């Protein structure tokens, strides 16, 4: 066995060829075009989300994290695994922020096996704790795409038809060790209407291309950490619902938060129902959310009632996912030369330097690319319009 030298020092790892980005491109438009293509893709995403399409708001998502040997690679700092888990924590928070009535589950695959880290659940805390714990695990062996997809499928196939069933694979290895023909599994997944998306950490692998194409998911390969984050965040938005998925009314409870003070004689401390399945020490608390149907107590929302199965949410949660239904219209893109007005972005007040500027169709204010993305991805409302609204 030849031993891989420990690569602990940063200078022993990847060469960051920053000078190449700056290099004058004498052969014409070659290198610039790749960036151009990326830029276009960025914009496209903004556009795509703005059609009047039905979105699958109730999502059941399994994230499969490759924890094989290749995750030790240090091209993401400090290594792929740590970097991925960090981003995942952020992703889980964002996910529940944007999709309050959805659930998530995490599966890790290594050593030719798949292991469920957390089951499908709607509580971010548990997932984040599991992710934090996973940082210390070692990365060994090969991943198994087949096994992990199979594990996810076993749970997802029992989910009701009106929910959006998704799997997101974060795949670092370039090889997979499968016990059976994966193309059969892909067919089954397709039949169950499970959408599989893949984010590749190293390069384009054929089987992932097929997998995503067949199941209607997306396949992207990261360029660097920021691109990775960007790609991950794409999955925060709910995907368009497939036309065949059923519509149904869902009963929901909106429990009020009852605050009881210690001075109140009637208040009795009680356990929260969510402690039933957590391994931590049960904590007694006074206040909480009470299920309007069965009066079971919970300390956190959103949650599915353990007793009567009612989905408990708070109104602001639902409201937050509201913008998906009425998205901010895309801004119009013009080249900088054509634009005659003042060369300042309305939002960040920075000088407009990129080759194109973006104009809000309602208030005719102009924005730079970055602000355009920020407004559409995060704010969901145009600051220019708000200003004019305020005045009138």
């Amino acid at each position, binding site marked *: 066995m030849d031993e891989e030298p420990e690569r602990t020092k940063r200078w022993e790892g990847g060469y960051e060829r920053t000078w190449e980005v700056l290099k004058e491109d004498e052969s014409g438009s*070659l290198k610039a075009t790749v960036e151009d293509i990326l830029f276009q893709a960025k914009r496209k995403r903004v556009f795509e989300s703005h059609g009047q399409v039905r979105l699958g708001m109730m999502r059941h998502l399994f994230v499969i994290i490759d924890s094989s040997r290749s995750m030790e690679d240090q091209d993401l700092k400090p290594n792929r695994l740590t970097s991925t888990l960090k981003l995942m924590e952020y992703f889980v928070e964002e996910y529940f922020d944007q999709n309050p009535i959805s659930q998530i589950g995490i599966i890790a695959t290594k050593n030719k096996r798949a292991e469920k880290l957390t089951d499908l659940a709607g509580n971010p805390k548990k997932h984040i704790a599991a992710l934090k714990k996973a940082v210390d695990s070692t990365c060994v062996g090969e991943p198994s795409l087949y096994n992990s997809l199979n594990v996810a499928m076993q749970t997802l196939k029992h989910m009701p038809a009106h929910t959006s069933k998704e799997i997101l694979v974060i795949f670092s290895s370039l090889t997979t060790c499968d016990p059976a023909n994966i193309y059969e599994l892909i067919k089954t997944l397709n039949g169950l209407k499970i959408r599989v998306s893949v984010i590749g950490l190293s390069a384009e692998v*054929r089987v992932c291309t097929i997998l995503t194409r067949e199941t209607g998911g997306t396949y992207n390969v990261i360029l660097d950490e920021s691109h990775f984050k960007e790609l991950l965040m794409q999955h925060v938005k709910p995907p368009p619902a497939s036309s065949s998925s059923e519509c149904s009314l869902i009963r929901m409870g909106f429990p009020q938060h009852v605050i009881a003070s210690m001075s109140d004689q009637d208040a009795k401390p009680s356990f929260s129902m969510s402690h039933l399945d957590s391994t931590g020490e049960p904590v007694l608390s006074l206040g909480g959310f009470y299920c309007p149907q069965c009066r079971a107590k919970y300390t956190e929302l959103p949650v599915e009632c353990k007793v009567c199965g009612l989905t408990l949410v708070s109104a602001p949660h639902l409201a937050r996912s509201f913008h998906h239904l009425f998205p901010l219209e895309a801004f119009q893109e013009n080249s900088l030369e054509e634009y005659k007005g003042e060369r300042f972005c309305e939002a960040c007040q920075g000088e407009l330097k990129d080759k194109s500027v973006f104009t809000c169709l309602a208030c005719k204010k102009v924005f730079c690319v970055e602000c355009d993305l920020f407004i559409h991805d995060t704010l969901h409302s145009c600051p220019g319009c708000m200003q004019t609204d305020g005045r009138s």
Partner: protein
Amino acid sequence: MKLNIDGLLVYFPYDYIYPEQYSYMLELKRTLDAKGHGVLEMPSGTGKTISLLSLIVAYQKAYPLEVTKLVYCSRTVPEIEKVVEELRKLMDYYTKQTGAKNDFLALALSSRKNLCIHPEVSSLRFGKEVDGKCHSLTASYIRAQHHSNPSQPVCQFYEEFDSVGRQVPISPGIYNLDDLKDLGRRKGWCPYFLARYAILHANIVVYSYHYLLDPKIADVVSKELAKKSVVVFDEAHNIDNVCIDSMSVNITRRTLDRCQTNVETLQNTISKIKETDAAKLREEYRRLVEGLKEANVARETDIYLSNPVLPDEILQEAVPGSIRTAEHFVGFMKRFLEYLKARLRIHHVVQESAPQFLKDIFEKVCIDRKPLRFCAERLRSLLRTLEIADIADFSAITLISHFATLVSTYSKGFTIIIEPFEDKTPTIANPVLHFSCMDPSIAIKPVFGRFQSVIITSGTLSPLDIYPRILDFRPVTVASFTMTLARTCLCPLIVGRGNDQVAMTSKFETREDFAVIRNYGNLLLEMSAVVPDGIVAFFTSYIYMENIVASWYEQGILENIQRNKLIFIETQDAAETSMALEKYQEACENGRGAILLSVARGKVSEGIDFVHHFGRAVIMFGVPYVYTQSRILKARLEYLREQFQIRENDFLTFDAMRHAAQCVGRVIRGKTDYGLMIFADKVSKLFGKKHANFSLSFNCYFSPQRYARADKRGKLPRWIQEHLTDGSLNLTIDETVQLSKHFLRQMAQPFRQEDQLGLSLLTLEQLQSEDMLQKIAQIAHQA
């Protein structure tokens, strides 16, 4: 779309066109206008075939009297089929656009083995058997016997064709091999003879090189092709070797033994005939006195033997008296055979020229030059007279007679080498007489002489000027086209050192060097971890590959590689290789990933494409020089130097580079494809002109002699060279891995057709714009 190529209306069956295709057609048009020959290099996957076909067909339609026929030569049967399919697409487009019914006849021709529909004959496995069997059913005298004796079997398909097929012209259309067979079955005609007959009036003929280059076959099949034909040699980077092979003869002791039996059979048959039918022999004698011209007029099925380019004046002469009677000729052959046997009984290597050989044979056994020259023709006549059905058996004596004719006809361009044993096994006696052709222009000369335009084209013809020199012709256009790309989808890298800074090279002296082998292993190991799906690795020879793989096994490198990818190996066994290939593709398909270890100049390097995921990277371990110790090669090099003033090293480098380019070219099969090309050898001087100064100053320190001529032209095709930057030369393994990772991630980004449009893919409007036409003008690179 309809294009205007320099005043010629060209129908192009696709909605989009690559700029280089347009440029290619311009050059082609120029060549045809000048009625001259051309050498055109354009990378594979850019639609060479359709450009060629569209332009030439348009030319034929516009000037039917100038160009009557297109003869398209390709190398393998699948390639022939591909060409026919493209042609079909083009013709369909014509019909759709003009509304006129297609009046073109185009067909593919292949051997009997691929075309035979006779139930018994077609079930035979080997081409030779099929030919022999077919001949025993269709030869003229067999059919004559059939008339008198109906129990004599004949081929009913041929009979049917012979009685009606010739009168009814085959209806216009596009026929591939299967279409011909279908037609044959429907009408009950023999497809092979139908095709052979139909090529005389077909507008387009697609067949293999050999039908034109191998004098033995060309004489039968292609003799009557019109002078106003345009001949295209596709994938022609190896054309010189094909020419040489078709003119060379190797004689082993086994050949001589079989020849001995042949002679005995002949003798017996002659004496038998003499008793029964002496008149026949007398008749033959009379014919031979009158001259061979008449002997030439025989039915087309009598392809007893072939006739290596006999100069016409020989055919005018009468056969010399000493071999005119059958017995004398057999006696003559016996003597010649004994002489050859004696020559093979040696213990040291002999190399001599043809005149030396003739002198020696005259001194030893009193055989003159003149009768030797007629040997092939005389044997042909004899076999016909004797009515021997199965010509397959007589291959040995045929070979000897060819040798006799060739050696006495050409005093230059050939060499005779007699080796008592093979170099690898010096203890086992296995004498071989190589009569080796050193001048490819001999075989191809009639082609250049006869046809008005000959186009030589391939993805790898660099350096372009060497082909006209070694094939001895004067082209009117010599051009190399590059691939216009919307993204740099190929990434050539030259790895010169391991991480330990030990230079990597497959140079003979350092082959066994442990450090070199380990570095090669590490390179493959590292690449197997970063490249997805398939990797193809090429070694310089089978032996070298075996040594290295064994050594990797001992060092545990193989085990480590197998964690990332499965390993498959090409062997000399064709069945084993195709099995390995199949499994390799399966492993690439389902995500396990695989590495194929193969050999440059092997089957994989020439005929098999690794599209998309089947080949994301190709690694060349070393530079695939030919085995330079071979005497045949040495003789050829010497000849090249004396005759064409081509230096040995220039030729060797050229030859190695075209094979390297051929190997690495396997992975890029189109503009949407992408792949890494890794050359693992420090000899970076070969890879480019503009980097010469860099490598000169850098490498002088190590070995001044080897790099003294570093300023010579880069021998790789331009389309690879232009992607070689200073940053991709002489890398270490680590740097290579970093660059590869970066490249693969870039390439994995979504890439749609719209991104290509206007840059590397044009619509008609874009094509007509002024600045695009200017850009296109730059694509063609006049060598």
